[in-house]
């Protein structure tokens, strides 16, 4: 693509001789061809990147005023939102942003499940994405603990103690994570370091790898057929369009609508009915006063419900770990020829639909106290959760092989 550089003088030529700016834009944006039939589900990748940048920027300002530590954290948050100009906006943006990050990431993952985006040749793209999800869970958990509210404290107790169930090294590991015999100053300062330095770096690196892998294999699409299989005389995919300007402009529409929803929550309902910010977290951490029932934030509750569904704590923790890790193996569990759910049989559709509903029901159950009917339901839906991963290899092999169209389905609008 050296043609781009030729015939231009002045600063731009000077710059491009030293830094391949035009080359980069040509490779990554104007010369990168994406399928033209993306639907609404394809907004969530760029939106996840947007939220990540937003969390970094708001986080920079929160870090300026936040004082990590057992005695200082809580007061510094109250001080910043009440007395530092515009922190009443930036701090809730950061807190609510965490929930929106997970909303976007879950929808992004649901898209991959529906259209088989994880299937060859995109297995590694999916695995890197799952590693981002795991790093994000750690990042969100530590961020949740930092303000040292009462639910932060008790939630951290429950989650850190889970590591104690690992045979042999468990108890020592828990102490090593906390840096103390209980959650204290040492825990909060190390979580601060990890939350602000280590994990953002790791996530940024993984996001870069995710994008490099995406450029290598190209995006899949709702039909799950490869656009590179049908090239025009110019060597470009017939069903592909340059990412810029087409998808940059389309994604900006998504950004506008997403930010509108985000603003509605941040400005008018920042606690979101006690779901994005929980009522007990408006009280400082109190080791002698347990909240009425301890529940993690909504984005962890599906796994929390699985943990509590098992009477034995060790088994519960193990099952929970497997339930998260199971996603990593999807590219190999799914043995269908076709990628997209559009060209799979009814049983595949029902199985995936059941899994989505199961995930949401478990999310709801994790917010409930573990008693009576809720425990019974949690057990049933935990079984259904794992049934999806166990049945997928057989169902996908049996009814994922129907005919697929030659070209992507697209109606000009």
């Amino acid at each position, binding site marked *: 693509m050296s043609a781009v550089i030729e015939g231009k003088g002045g600063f731009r030529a000077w710059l491009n001789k030293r830094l391949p700016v035009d080359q980069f834009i040509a490779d990554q944006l104007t010369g990168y061809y994406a399928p*033209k039939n993306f*639907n*609404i*589900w394809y907004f969530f990748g760029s939106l996840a990147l947007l939220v990540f940048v937003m969390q970094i920027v708001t986080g920079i300002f929160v870090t300026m005023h936040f004082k990590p530590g057992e005695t200082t954290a809580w007061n510094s948050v*109250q*001080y910043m*939102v*009440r007395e530092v100009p515009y922190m*009443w*906006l930036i701090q809730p943006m950061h807190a609510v942003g965490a929930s929106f990050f997970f*909303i976007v990431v*879950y*929808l992004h993952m*649901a898209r991959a499940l529906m259209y088989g985006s994880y299937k060859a040749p995109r297995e590694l793209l999916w695995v890197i994405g799952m590693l981002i999800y795991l790093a994000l869970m750690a990042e969100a958990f530590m961020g949740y603990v930092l303000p040292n509210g009462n639910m932060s404290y008790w939630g951290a107790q429950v989650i850190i103690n889970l590591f104690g169930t690992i045979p042999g090294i468990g108890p020592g590991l828990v102490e090593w994570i906390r840096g103390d015999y209980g959650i204290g100053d040492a825990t909060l300062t190390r979580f601060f370091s990890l939350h602000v330095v280590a994990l953002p770096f790791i996530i940024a690196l993984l996001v870069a790898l995710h994008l490099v892998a995406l450029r290598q294999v190209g995006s899949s699409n709702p039909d799950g057929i490869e656009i590179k299989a049908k090239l025009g005389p110019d060597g470009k995919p017939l069903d592909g*369009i340059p990412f810029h*300007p*087409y998808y940059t*402009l*389309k994604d*900006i*529409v998504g*950004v*506008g*609508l997403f*930010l*509108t929803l985000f*603003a*509605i929550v*941040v*400005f*008018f309902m920042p*606690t*979101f*009915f*006690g*779901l994005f910010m929980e*009522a*007990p*977290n*408006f*009280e400082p951490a109190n080791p002698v006063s347990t909240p*009425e029932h301890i529940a993690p934030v*909504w984005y962890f509750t599906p796994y929390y419900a699985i943990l509590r569904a098992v009477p034995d704590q060790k088994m519960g923790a193990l099952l929970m770990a497997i339930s998260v890790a199971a996603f990593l193996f999807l590219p190999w569990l799914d043995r269908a020829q076709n990628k997209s759910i559009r060209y799979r049989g009814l049983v595949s559709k029902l199985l995936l639909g059941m899994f*989505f509903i199961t995930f*949401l029901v478990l*999310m*709801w159950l994790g*917010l*409930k106290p573990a008693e009576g009917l809720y425990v019974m339901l949690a057990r049933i839906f935990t079984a259904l959760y794992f049934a999806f991963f166990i049945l997928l290899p057989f169902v996908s092999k049996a009814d994922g092989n129907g005919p697929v169209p030659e070209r992507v389905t*697209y109606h*000009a*609008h």
Partner: protein
Amino acid sequence: MLIKSASVATVLALVFSAGVVSANEGGHAAGWQRQADNEIANLPSLQRGARNFMAYCSGCHSLKFVRYARICEDLKIAPNQCEALLVRPGDKPIDYIKSSMPAADATEWFGKPPPDLSLVARSRGTDWVFNFLTTFYADPANQKTGVNNLQLPGTAMPHVLSSLQGVQNAVWRNVEQKAEGGQAIVAREFEKFEPGVTGSITSAQYDDFVRDTVNFLQYAGDPTQLQREGIGLWVILFLLLFSGIAYLLKKEYWKDVR
């Protein structure tokens, strides 16, 4: 496209409604519980609430994250009135509102220091505070304060507002319940309040008094709320306009895609 949008909307609705349902179930709503029905935009109510707090609550409870001057600015109380009506003698307007009671004394008198109330409306909720302040009743069994409370049974707090509300009596009825072993036990269930010692204002006036105070506590828990919602409306209008223009631009470019 439309079907897909609808399915995304359904997923979002499911995710969110799960939370709404759980958020409503803080505890089992008993028949005597009422809603505070305070209006955060009602400035005179907030001003009365601030006055009530300073007169009746601040002797024991602090608002340690709130400054007098901030209240007067937000609630549009003139500086001379602010000093005369709100600022405690010896304090400056810029000071935080600290309790005038030494913590050691408080612990000796009540068993524990009275909590700071800066965030009580957010941690407990406005309805909880409203019900707490309206459901004190005479209870001779409590030798320390002579009262008890429906919202927070066994509370260490005396009925500070009894000069206004008076002291009401609780009427209980006996209900038979099945214990775990299957044998019937008799439990006491609250039925209604009866007037006891009368106070200086009517019960409707007292409700208004508490409502104003709760309103002020909601303000104290989130002092930028009104400002935030004012700005938020413009932000949302801008974002909708932005999305609309972005959509038209996208549509223009996508005309080429066949």
